[in-house]
């Protein structure tokens, strides 16, 4: 595995670092559980979408947004366990090559929220190697927080989809997303300029 020189970071900290970089109403899709809890805790933005189920679909949902709005950068935050549920999506994205899609994988090797059981990939599989082999040539591990920020900056102007993976610790999410799916969806559509509020 190519992760041994990467620093173990914290999900909430790197999520805050990412959000601080967003100046152009970029869309952010938060995968289920801790990933979107920390997105919520980093401060709600109208361009945030929070999943409350459908584990593994953060990247496909973000792909749909990216195809609908090619001029907007679209981020997706996904956990390692979630990504393992939908590895085929990496090939779909590699085939379509949406240059405005940026995938971020938070890898702690565990299903933290269900009791910290190890994933089947923990210590065995390299998610960046999987992404590269799936055709996502612009995929990399972030070595530390500064490297993560550098990779995000690069991805913002890339002409192909980007995947950035981070090793993170076993801490739970900091906040708890308000579980109101209709309002989440409606406000996201307002944030993307698709609809006006009543």
């Amino acid at each position, binding site marked *: 595995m190519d992760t041994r020189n990467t620093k173990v970071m914290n999900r909430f900290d790197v999520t805050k670092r990412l959000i601080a970089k967003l100046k152009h109403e970029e869309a952010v899709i938060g995968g289920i559980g801790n990933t979107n809890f920390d997105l919520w805790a980093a401060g709600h933005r109208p361009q945030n979408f929070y999943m409350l189920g459908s584990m593994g679909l953060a990247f*496909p949902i973000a792909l*749909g947004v990216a195809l609908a709005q090619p001029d907007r950068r679209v981020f997706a935050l996904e956990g390692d366990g979630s990504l393992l549920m939908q590895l085929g999506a990496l090939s*779909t994205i590699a085939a379509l090559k949406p240059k405005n899609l940026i995938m971020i994988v938070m890898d702690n090797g565990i299903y933290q929220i269900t009791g910290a059981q190890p994933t089947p990939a923990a210590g065995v599989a390299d998610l960046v190697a999987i992404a590269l082999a799936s055709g996502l040539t612009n995929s990399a591990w972030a070595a530390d927080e500064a490297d993560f920020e550098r990779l995000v900056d690069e991805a913002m102007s890339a002409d192909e989809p980007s995947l950035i993976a981070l090793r993170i610790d076993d801490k739970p999410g900091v906040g708890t997303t308000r579980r109101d799916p*209709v309002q989440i969806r409606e406000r996201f559509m307002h944030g*993307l300029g698709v*609809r006006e509020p009543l």
Partner: protein
Amino acid sequence: MAIAEQQTSSQAGPGSGDGSWHSIVLQTLKRNEISLIPYVPDRVLTPLIKNLHADPFFTTFATAREEEAVGIVSGAWMGGRRGAVLMQTSGFATLANTLASLAVPYQIPLIMFVSERGTLGEFNYGQSLVCRTMRPVLDSLALEHHTITRLDELEFITDRSIKQAVTTQAPVALILNPLLTGGKTFDK
């Protein structure tokens, strides 16, 4: 999103092609501005998929799983672009969690075309079994669904169902029965 105000045509207009079921589906999608078509293929859907690929109005592509396709069109809808998912009966059977945790609670007008296998001459026992789970799942979530058996009803059902899905922000499944498509038989 003012599709509700558009006229509801029950006539296949000019450019409806050869009057085949797949030509009618394609034209009805186009008229309703549905341009994003992820699919998991099915033998019966092959002429539709081929013609969608050939038409630059559509962005047509295969996904690895049906769930993925549902996620893609859900994201696209929220971004202002309409899509529909093509799949087979067995593929629909993989969707219960995605329907119950994404499309239904978030009120997304997910438009599904399901090529129906498992009935009217099925030769694979597993297909006939999984087919029996489809309508109970749809009914248990109170989802709108229609089984289309007649060519003369296809355009009306499809056009009206798409418009209803969009205006009521609710999923719909359009089940393409072998009586409409010919289905898949053992000698094919």
